[in-house]
């Protein structure tokens, strides 16, 4: 990818990640800060060596997509942030936020909304239609492990973009991450 391609992608992702932050703001009814996206070109087998962030246990939702690029999008929270998020949203009398089923349902839907906001905005900017390759899926795992599941070739070059979401009043920290295979375009 050229420098111009990366600049263009940065601009696209910046707008798309802000859409996700707006959605989280609507859900939580509190201000949500979003960092500028960090974009790296890496080889698949480098994922394990990336930031310590990628190695930690996370509560995460992932959603695969395919279009002019294909890849995986992930919304990840540290376990304690995920717990605070669920407690904030599962406030109806019929919802016990400590029940695993409620936790999974809430986090899956939050992931669905935020990841779809990112991918939908990217598709609209590109004027292309993205196909979702699965329904959003919730897992508790190491982020690097989840990302590597979609990578068959350890030497494949991939784009890894991520941004941090932070709701300071609720002490909720999240990570939005996109892994794209730019050279497998269909």
């Amino acid at each position, binding site marked *: 990818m050229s420098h111009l391609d990366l600049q263009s992608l940065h601009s696209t992702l910046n707008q798309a990640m802000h859409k996700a932050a707006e959605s989280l703001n609507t859900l939580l009814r509190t201000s949500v800060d979003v960092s500028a996206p960090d974009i790296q070109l890496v080889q698949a087998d480098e994922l394990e060596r990336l930031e310590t962030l990628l190695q930690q246990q996370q509560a995460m939702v992932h959603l695969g997509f395919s279009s002019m690029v294909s890849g995986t999008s992930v919304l990840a929270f540290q376990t304690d942030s995920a717990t605070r998020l669920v407690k904030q949203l599962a406030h109806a009398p019929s919802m016990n936020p400590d029940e695993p089923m409620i936790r999974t349902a809430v986090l*899956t839907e939050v992931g669905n*909304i935020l990841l779809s906001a990112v991918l*939908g905005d990217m598709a609209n900017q590109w004027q292309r239609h993205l196909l979702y390759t699965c329904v959003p899926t919730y897992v508790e795992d190491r982020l690097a492990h989840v990302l590597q599941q979609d990578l068959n070739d350890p030497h494949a070059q991939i784009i890894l973009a991520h941004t941090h979401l932070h709701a300071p009043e609720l002490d909720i920290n999240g990570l939005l991450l996109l892994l794209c295979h730019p050279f497998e375009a269909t």
Partner: protein
Amino acid sequence: MPNILVIDDSWFQRASIRSILEELGYHILEAENGRIGLLMAVKHEPDCVLLDVLMPEMDGITTLRKIREQELSMPIIMVTADTQDTTKQQCLQLGAQQVLHKPIDPDGDLLPTVVQQALAR
């Protein structure tokens, strides 16, 4: 009061919509995917359907098409996280009355207003 069928694979989302609309007196039916939703639409002929797009077993686009193939003409409002312009166009072409994007603000009046408008057609 009117019957409203909510088809969404997210239990959390169905519960949220139920809580908003039951407070206004609507009777809510629920289906967790398009296949079950289609059966319920045929059996109960609800006054309005709220339909998600991305679902397992049968997605919302297919469900919308199949409901219309059954010559059921109740208003169908898509309630989806998919914000793609292309998805919206496709839903409207297939006969959806409106496309709402998640998240739905539980204290906002968007969903109640859109449902009221749909029922008043």
